[in-house]
């Protein structure tokens, strides 16, 4: 079985997304002596710098700048690219748009993608592991039938390699034309999250509040901690979201997002099974809770039994001191 890869590079503000670079590096490592190429659709200012990650080629597809993301057009473009490049595997990142794209691509190419994988290695074939039941179990999957096979990797799980400075490569334009008028859906307005606010799924540090927050205004206590720690995002439990204290986009757990940050700080969260499913693969877990019997303490690396409204402001001071050093 061959092991050439074609990785779809998603762009944001005309730059390659970090999660796409993670997928590219993961494919590059597995490919070994074989090749990993990238395909970029539309404007991408740093496309030629993808060479710094050891890609064999960067294929580009022109897209009208007005098109926005349209999963049907992008799936058609990736399928056309795959037809020319003939990779054994087509991969990408399991972002919101990546999921939609790989669904359409699966239907186009007649094979089901393995989505949101957290392990990838070569052992006589491509071995992928993906969480099921929001991470309550892990499944090993395999592909049947002919190449190409499709997969996406969970953002923030696979390390991106350090770029090899100075490398660049020529771009290979593919003769694929995208007609924006054929798009079945149209983006009419883009709304950004609050300025500088990071998504919980992409953050290295997640600081979450639960029922113990007692009200929406108290989330400012956590926002102060988010503000002092680099690459941190604000999370929440279902109890806090259902109480209307914070938007659902912050929810971590089975009906929210599943996250695997380096550090997860749970404040006033007791640890319902649905919440634990969404964060128990974090590298390090800290729990701050008044109730010493809270289930969250059973999996926390560090627990503080106390009032979060006293502890968190002290943490803000201590993190400031430490990070100023």
């Amino acid at each position: 079985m061959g092991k050439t890869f074609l990785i779809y590079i998603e762009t944001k503000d005309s730059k390659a997304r970090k999660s796409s670079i993670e997928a590219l590096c993961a494919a590059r490592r597995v490919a070994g002596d074989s090749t990993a190429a990238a395909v970029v659709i539309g404007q991408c200012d740093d496309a030629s710098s993808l060479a710094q990650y050891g890609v064999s080629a960067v294929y580009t597809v022109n897209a009208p700048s007005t098109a926005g993301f349209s999963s049907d057009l992008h799936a058609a473009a990736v399928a056309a690219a795959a037809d020319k490049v003939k990779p054994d595997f087509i991969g990408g990142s399991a972002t919101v748009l990546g999921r939609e794209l790989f669904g359409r691509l699966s239907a186009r190419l007649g094979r089901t993608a393995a989505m949101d994988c957290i392990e990838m290695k070569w052992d006589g074939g491509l071995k992928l592991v993906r969480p099921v039941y929001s991470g309550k179990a892990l499944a090993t999957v395999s592909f049947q039938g002919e190449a190409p096979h499709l997969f996406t990797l969970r953002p923030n799980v696979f390390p991106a390699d350090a770029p090899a400075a100075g490398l660049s490569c020529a771009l290979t334009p593919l003769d694929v034309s995208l007609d924006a008028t054929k798009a079945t859906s149209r983006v009419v307005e883009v709304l950004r999250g609050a300025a500088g606010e990071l998504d919980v799924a992409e953050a290295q540090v997640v600081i979450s509040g639960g029922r113990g927050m007692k009200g929406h205004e108290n989330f400012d206590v956590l926002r102060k901690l988010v503000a002092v720690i680099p690459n941190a995002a604000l999370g929440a439990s279902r109890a806090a979201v259902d109480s209307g204290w914070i938007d659902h986009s912050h929810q971590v757990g089975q009906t929210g997002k599943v996250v695997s940050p380096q550090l997860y700080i749970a404040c006033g969260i007791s640890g319902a099974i649905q919440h634990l499913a969404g964060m128990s693969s974090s590298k390090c877990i800290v729990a701050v809770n008044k109730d010493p019997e809270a289930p969250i303490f059973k999996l926390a690396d560090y627990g503080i039994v106390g009032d979060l409204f006293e502890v968190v402001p002290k943490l803000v001071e201590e993190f400031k001191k430490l990070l100023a050093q």
Partner: protein
Amino acid sequence: MNIIVCLKQVFATDARIKIAPDGKTVSEEQIEWIMSPYDEFALEEALRIREAKSGKITALTLGPERCTTMLRSAFALGVDAAVHLKDPLFDNLDALAVARVLAEAIRKIPHDLVLFGKQGVGVDQGLVQSMVAELLGLPLANIVTKLSVEADKVRCLREVDGGSEWVECGLPAIVSAQKGLNDPRIANLKGIMAAKKKPIDVWNAQSLGVTADSIGASTLTHDSYVLPPPRKAGKVLQGTAEDTAQQLVSLLRNEAKII
């Protein structure tokens, strides 16, 4: 307006997962089955659209006999018709095979709008709605938290990483529901009683006009399962708020080496 709501029956979200002794399947013993939580938002939205615009709602599911209870719940909430795709051929299909069967059924049911939950909670692939969109050549608004139906299009607020976007799709269209779209109602006793007598249309492979060949063999298989490695409880820090905060930051730097 004709609306199809695609429903999936899944494990209750508080289910504890047990792996069968051979490691090849997830045990279904003592599992409570529910309508996937995201499908509840899709169904509620269908009811609200019908209340505003009139029309007909068909609940559509694929699965074994147990799914009857979920279709009864959908009737209790107010759907007009229910179609149950049930056949031994439909067992253990991968996402694309499910999408092909659903797409065939959707072709046979009049529709202006097809609603899904953004994912079933369980296998968590989240692929079927975009596959069905591609198979039927329909627009898709995925992971939607606001929806308005206009004369010949829908306007949807969809979630993207780090923000959201308003997208417009001509009808017929597929929309998948995210939490936040609405607050689903609870069935009342009258609805529950009436639901018991409503007819469920059961379509098998033959009546649907699909075969093992047209569904296609699964191209992705889930071969084995393990539980994630258990985490051990760690240190509980003692002292005042200030003491514990100092200890924690020091441990994160020197022991966990995270910060």
